[in-house]
């Protein structure tokens, strides 16, 4: 039970962090940064 609770809390925290980082990355890109993938595609 303890493992399941900690697992869910860790998963929810890491998911939230990832979504925040992802949102920040989108903003940075829009502000002028060039993502590596698009660079390569060119």
């Amino acid at each position, binding site marked *: 039970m*303890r*493992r*399941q*609770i*900690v*697992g*869910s809390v*860790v*998963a929810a*925290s*890491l*998911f939230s*962090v*990832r979504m925040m*980082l*992802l949102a*920040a*990355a*989108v903003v*940075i890109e829009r502000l002028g*940064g*060039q*993502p*590596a*993938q698009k*660079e*390569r595609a060119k």
Partner: protein
Amino acid sequence: MSFPPYRLLDRDHIAKTQAKFERLERLYHVGQQKAWDGKQVLADLLKKHGGIRIPDAKRIAIGEVFSVILWGELAAWSIACDLALMLEEPGAKMAATSQAHDEARHFYVMRDYLLELGGKIPPLDGYTATVLNDLLDTRRLSDKLLGMQLIVETTALTLFRAVAQARVEPVLSDLMPYYERDEARHVGLGVLYLPTVLKGADRLETARLRLFQLKLITMIGWGTHLKQRYFKDLGIDHAEAMRYGNRMVQEAFEGMRSSEGGQPRAVLASSAMMQRINEKAMEVFFPSQEAPQPAWQRAVVGFCGQLARVGDVALRMAA
């Protein structure tokens, strides 16, 4: 449920279900035809390549990545046995039984390979341990089928393909196509039977299943961050591997849609928005190792690596 289920002998029932589950039954027969002798295959490959001769850095990296596969195969073996017990339709039961036979072979061949490789095989990381324990502990058929057949098996398939393509180590790379071929059938069990299981899911169950998948995918993603440097040591481009894995999940989903004609809403990959977020996340968090990355992206990837280690410690402590 009372035993024996006499309806299985009823001609009308057989006629009604046979067409529907014929392809599942075929998985069993194909599995039987294509079963390979693990002892013989490994011995032949070791002889062909003159044993395993690799630098220590690669040996450590293989141990790190393939301890996940070793214990994953053991869990898959137990889960396939659970499925064989839980599934009622003979075709599906046969497919799960065939899978259990395959997974037993995958486990002992990988164990023998790792013993031959030598060196210390590290314990399982916290993320993979959580995913596998969740799937082993659950009594829900839908969780086992979705989690193991659709998410874990496609992840394993992706890794097998990447290891084979990167020619990581000749014996291991030549072994991977044997695993890959079997795993494709295991994904097939999920694709063919999940729509039947998920058909009756109400809104609450759909939401629960989506959260469950989100948890598994999050864990696997962060587990990949944790192993990032080992993938690099093995020459595996995880960006390419992730894209391939994503295509696999989409193909599985398409197969499910065509097999039932409807849209299994409980499957997370079915959402177009989730798909867009997923593609963006792969682009940002798992950039190609060859392409130059801007400073902000290097910082994000580095931060994720550190955070992945913190999460790993927390999960190991809770285990």
